[in-house]
C-alpha cells in the first residue's frame, strides 16, 4: 500500500510498515555510507553527543553530488548506494540510533534483518541510480557534518525532503523480506535454466 509519511515516526508506526508498502517521505533524512557509520558509532562508544538526532530522521545510504552555491549547498544528484557494504555494522547502528526507516538499494543481510526486528525499523529500496529524481525531491540541504574529514560522498548530509520516493519496503520488523520471498522462485528458475543449458 502507498503511504505518505511525515518524519519523525515512532517505533509503533514503523512496526506497522510491511514489505510491499511504497513510501513517500516528507521531513529530514541524513546520508551515511561506510565512513559516516563508523564515525557515528565511534562517537557513540566514546559517549559523545552527535550534532543531530538520527532517530528523528530516515537514514539514507547515499554519497551525493553536491555543489556549493554561496552560503548554501545545492544537491545535483543523490541516488542510493549499495547497502550491503553497511551490513557489517548496520545492526549496531540501528541499536545505537534507531532510525525508523533505512533507505538504500540492493537489500541487506541477516544481521540487519535481526536489527530491524529488534529495534522496530524497516529497510526500503530506492531505485538505484535515480540520482536526478532524488535530487528533485530534496528541498534543501540543512547541514553537513564531517565534510572535511570524510569528503563529499562519505560525509553526513542532512536533507529536508518532500515526497521522497518511491521507497519500496523490502525488509520489515515482522520478519518480512522481499529478497527471501523471491529466492524459491529464482531457485526454481535456475533449475529450468540448468536443464536448458544441458539440453
Amino acid at each position, binding site marked *: 500500500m502507498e503511504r505518505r509519511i511525515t518524519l519523525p515516526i515512532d517505533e509503533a508506526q514503523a512496526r506497522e510498515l510491511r514489505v510491499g508498502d511504497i513510501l513517500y517521505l516528507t521531513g529530514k533524512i541524513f546520508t551515511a555510507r561506510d565512513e559516516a557509520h563508523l564515525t557515528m558509532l565511534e562517537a557513540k562508544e566514546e559517549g559523545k553527543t552527535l550534532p543531530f538526532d538520527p532517530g528523528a530522521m530516515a537514514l539514507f545510504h547515499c554519497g551525493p553530488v553536491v555543489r556549493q552555491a554561496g552560503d548554501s549547498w545545492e544537491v545535483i544528484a543523490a541516488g542510493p548506494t549499495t547497502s550491503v557494504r553497511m551490513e557489517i555494522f548496520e545492526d549496531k547502528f540501528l541499536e545505537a540510533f534507531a532510525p525508523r526507516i533505512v533507505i538504500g*538499494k*540492493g537489500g541487506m543481510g541477516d544481521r540487519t534483518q535481526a536489527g530491524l526486528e529488534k529495534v522496530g525499523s524497516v529497510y526500503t529500496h530506492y531505485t538505484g541510480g535515480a540520482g536526478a*529524481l532524488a535530487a528533485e525531491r530534496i528541498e534543501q540541504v540543512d547541514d553537513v557534518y564531517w565534510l572535511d574529514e570524510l569528503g563529499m560522498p562519505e560525509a553526513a548530509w542532512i536533507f529536508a525532503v518532500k515526497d521522497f520516493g518511491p521507497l519500496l519496503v523490502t525488509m520489515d520488523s515482522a520478519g518480512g523480506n522481499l529478497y527471501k520471498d*523471491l529466492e524459491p522462485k529464482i531457485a526454481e528458475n535456475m533449475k529450468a535454466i540448468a536443464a536448458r543449458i544441458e539440453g
Partner: protein
Amino acid sequence: MKSETVKSAVVDALRIASTILPEDVVNALKAARERETSDLGAAQLDAILQNVGIAREGSIPMCQDTGLQTFFIEAGAKSPFLGEIRDWIEAAVVDATAAIPLRPNTVDPFTGANPGNNTGRFMPFINWEIVEGDEVRITVLPKGGGSENMSTVKMLPPGVGLKGIKKAVVEHIVSCQGKPCPPTVIGVGIGGGADIALKLGKKAILRKIGSRHPNPDVAAYEGELLELVNMSGVGPMGVGGETTCLAVHVEYASRHPASLPLGILVQCWADRRSQVLVKADGTAEVIS
C-alpha cells in the same frame, strides 16, 4: 589552440555521457518496461525512465555515482597528437569535475586522500590501442562503482566448455541480485588470460545495445546468454521481473590449452558512454 579544442570536446563528451543516456539504452529500457509483468519491477523501470528524463532536461548527472572516468583510445599511429592526448584528457577531467559537476571519486588506497578532481595515480585510466591512420577516437566510459564491484574473473577448467561458461555467467549474475542496478549490460570476455578476459569484457560493454558480435556463432551465443539470464526472474533492481539484463556482449581471444579465463563485466542500467574524434588537423568533435 589544439589542446583547448580537444580538451573542450572531451569535457563535452563527459557531460553528454553523464547526463544523456544513449538512445539505444533508453530504447532498451522502454522495451523492458513494455514487457514487464511484475508491478514492482515495472515501478523500478518507471522511476529509471523518469530519472533519465529529469537528467537530460536539466543537464544534470543521471546518477550520483558519476563513476571512474575511464577512457578507451583507438589511436591512429600517424596522429600528430599521441604525446599530448593524455595531458589533455586529464585536464578535461579536472574541468568537467567542476563544471558538470562530477562526484570526486578517486581515492588513494594507502592514504585515503581524495584530490577532489577525479585524478590520481593512473587516473583517469586510459586504455590505448594503436590502429592505422591519423585520427584518434576517444571513448569515455564513466564506470559506476556499484556495478564494477560485481565484475569478476573466473579461471574455469577448459573441460567445462561453452556450456560451463553459460552456467558460470548465469549463476554469477543471479548471485548479484539487485546490487549492480539491473537491468544490466553484461560484457563477457573469454580467453586470453585473467587480465585479458576482463579487458575484453570491458570493451564489450562499449558496444551499442542491439549490436551483435560479427562472428555469427558468437552472436548466437550472446542471444542465448541473454535469454538464459532473463529466465532467472531477478528483474529490475532485483525486486523480481522479466528483465535482469538489457544485453549480453561477448568478446574473445585465443586461450592457453590449460586455461579457460572468463571475465564478467557488469554495467548498470546507466550504460553511459560518449565518443570524441580527433582529426590530424587538430579539430575534435563529439561523434556519439
